[in-house]
């Protein structure tokens, strides 16, 4: 047995013989890792263990603000029928009342004498429905197509990339107008159609991420262990490919709400429903004389998109175990 060189060590710091010693030794040379044995994992909170993403999300101030704002908007949408019974398209008062001019109409009335507050509340339902459905459909379709193209490559990729390019070069708004004109202009159809014409951004993003991640070592390792395609796509690659999509999705919500408003402006929207978009479209003619007709629903739109953006950013952080950090 060769001699062991020992430098005078402070007493009581001899390496424990078992795994602890080995752990300690492999910490050696690591970046500023403390040389104390690791503290046992303390299970402080059930939430933290079972839903680490949710728990991390709730610790981020941005997420909390975003969630609160969104909750207020959703609350208004849900309670619209209670606070503003009746049809928001009914003419209820004098036209073009400024906000605060009449106590009965806190946010004023539009050029036909319809209550803006009622429109805003009922419009929240429509706009949220359109925005979230369209973004949901777009993200789902885009992810599936992008993932398939990126993962399988070759001929599949060539065909799908061609499809993506077709959709990218076709003016999507025109496509929506055409489809909505020949089908029925109900809100559900409009939302799905908007989603189906805006997926290509997501598809391109996901495809590029998949191409890059496919050759990474951890995917190779998973393949050599024998995982099938479904596992590789959904468990190994997709979670690492999602962050840029989350950001895009929150922008897509805003895009869909605005697209619905343009449809309403052109008269191909659902004429029986009031939406923030149709309110903005209706007020646009009087932007100089009655600016509040546009600004009020516009602000509602900005707040919604802002809250979604905050949630999206926080979600990226919360979904990443490294950024989530500090939790343990």
């Amino acid at each position, binding site marked *: *047995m*060769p*001699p*062991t*060189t*020992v*430098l*005078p*060590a*402070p007493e009581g*710091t001899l*390496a424990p013989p078992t*795994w*602890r010693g*080995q*752990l*300690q*030794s*492999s*910490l*050696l*040379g*690591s*970046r*500023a*890792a*403390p*040389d*104390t044995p*690791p503290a*046992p*994992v303390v299970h402080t909170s059930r939430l933290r*263990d079972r839903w680490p993403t949710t728990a991390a999300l709730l610790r981020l101030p941005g997420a909390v603000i975003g969630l609160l704002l969104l909750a207020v908007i959703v609350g208004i949408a849900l309670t619209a029928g209670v606070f503003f019974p009746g049809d928001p398209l009914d003419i209820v008062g004098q036209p073009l009342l400024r906000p605060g001019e009449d106590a009965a109409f806190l946010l004023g009335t539009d050029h036909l004498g319809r209550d803006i507050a009622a429109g805003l509340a009922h419009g929240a339902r429509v706009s949220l429905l359109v925005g979230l459905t369209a973004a949901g459909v777009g993200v789902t379709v885009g992810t599936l197509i992008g993932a398939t193209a990126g993962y399988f490559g070759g001929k599949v990729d060539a065909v799908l990339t061609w499809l993506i390019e077709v959709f990218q070069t076709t003016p999507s708004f025109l496509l929506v107008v055409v489809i909505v004109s020949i089908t029925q202009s109900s809100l559900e159809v409009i939302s799905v159609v908007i989603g189906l014409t805006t997926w290509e951004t997501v598809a391109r993003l996901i495809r590029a991420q998949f191409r890059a991640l496919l050759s*990474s*070592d*951890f995917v*190779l*390792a*998973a*393949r*050599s*262990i*024998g*995982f*099938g395609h479904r*596992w590789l796509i959904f*468990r*190994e690659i997709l*979670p*690492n490919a999602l962050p840029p999509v989350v950001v895009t999705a929150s922008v897509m919500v805003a895009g869909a709400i605005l697209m619905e408003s343009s449809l309403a402006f052109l008269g191909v929207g659902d004429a029986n429903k009031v939406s923030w978009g149709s309110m903005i479209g209706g007020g646009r003619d009087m932007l100089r004389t009655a600016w509040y007709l546009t600004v009020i629903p516009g602000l509602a739109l900005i707040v919604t998109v802002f809250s979604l953006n905050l949630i999206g950013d926080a979600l990226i952080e919360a*979904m*990443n*175990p*490294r950024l989530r950090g500090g939790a*343990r």
Partner: protein
Amino acid sequence: MSAVLAPRFDEAPLLDVRGLRVSFGSHAAVRGVDFQVAPGETLALVGESGCGKSTTAMAILRLLPDHAKASGHVLFGGRDLLALPEPALRGIRGNEISMIFQEPMTSLNPVLTIGEQIGEVLRRHQGLDRWQARARAIELLDRVRIPHAARRVDDYPHHLSGGQRQRVMIAIAVACQPKLLIADEPTTALDVTIQAQILELLRQLGEEFSMGLLLITHDLGVVGQWADRVSVMYGGEVLESASTERIFSAPGHAYTRGLLGASLRLDSNVFYRNTELPEVRVRADATTGERSFQLETRPAPEAREARVVTPDTAPLLSVQDLRTVYKTARGDVAAVDGVSFDIRPGETLGLVGESGCGKSTLSKTLLRLVDPSAGRIVLEGTDIASLPPRQLRAHRHRIQMVFQDPYGSLNPRHRVGDILESALRVNGVPDATERRRRVADILDRVGLPAASVDRYPHEFSGGQRQRIGLARTLVLRPSLVICDEPVSSLDVSVRAQILNLLVELKQAFDLSYLFISHDLSVVKYMADRVLVMNGGRIVERSDDQHDLWTAPRDPYTQTLIRAVPSPRFAPPPDDAVEPPATVEPVAEVAPSFLMWRFAV
């Protein structure tokens, strides 16, 4: 802590660093460092990752990010660089002190020709005009031994190989004939043969220009061959400064001794069957922060009994005339070109080659991550080269791989427990309790705490992640493990631990290894037999009759072995790793041979 030997200077030192401290916020990266560089001298700053050696280099030229705070003195030509105003400093950077970096692929601007990039420095610092600068650039390219300099001067960086780019970087660095050149891991990203050429070039240029060289490296072989003096750094402090000869023959500090013991050299005869590598351990006292260093050779485990391998034992893996062809825009390229070899049960077969030789493609082909174009891969009697995917699944678990990069080979979004358990589930272990038991068992075997299952990969250090990678391969109970550069990205001391672990696990799980590395000394330690690969072919193989290390036959092998940096100085006499001189070089281990270990 630092025992600085005053260097014998005939004149004032060129660079005098006194009490340099750098902190990033509350983290002290460099904690009072002193060293001097004399004109024409090469000082090596040695240490493992995170020891503050690169931060020290950046602090000398004040290239640290804004949130870093540096204090102390960096005296250069009578001026304190830390106190100098920014414009004056810009006149020194690239002119009197210049720097070259590790990564030649990204240090050059891809949209400018190399002539323009060399000329830029000359025009900035020496006021040459465009044509003078170009003429001088050609001269410099010639100086750094780039062939056909006059023609290459108009090339863009992507026309050049990695080694050539590093030469261009050196040309830029020495363009203004600086008094001091700081080289931060200049050859870490390069192949061994290129490394030797680059270091030789640096030495020659140092002599020609009588230029001081501050060489920052983790590689003790490089230090031993090229440096005049050495400063060993750990945890932001210089532990020991001495002449290279003294560091290698009579190291004063336990940490230095540990590094030397844990690093492998080609000229010693340590072999995994007879010697365990010593591991250096560092402990910090929790209250005083005082560190203590300790060199440990774990007590000898049970005899490393080799299974009796006779030539007629059926091989575990038999590769016959394997070809893998990639289709590229310029036609087909055979990355693996007619390779044949056997791996016998219980054997470690080493595979040596430089980047681009096809060793990675070979390992991917063996795992069927890439489909072979021709040939047979017979694993325990079954030819897996042409099995359809569905049938291949049943064989996958028997041949597994340990990857080079401990950071990239684990999915950052999965807990360690999930990574290991899902591998078992997909390979037909349906019972959750059984899976958890096996995961806990394997974690214990690779030396990780049971609590690791709840943690994510980023919470572990590089060496620990490599242990997780090992656990992932071993949890499937393979019979053959392909180790693709498993220790190349680890520090010397961690490397010794992982190598010891690999040897221990090989014994415990009755494994065979295909051990792939560009590092010849590691292969020499680990492998029973060795293959040398070049250009997709096996150019030389060692066997019971032919010892490749002492008598290489193929010219490529000879070049490779000659290029390995080896210290000019013999290891210290009390070197814990050196086996007694009476022991002959080990080839195949006969059981009686193992007895010497207990006789010592």
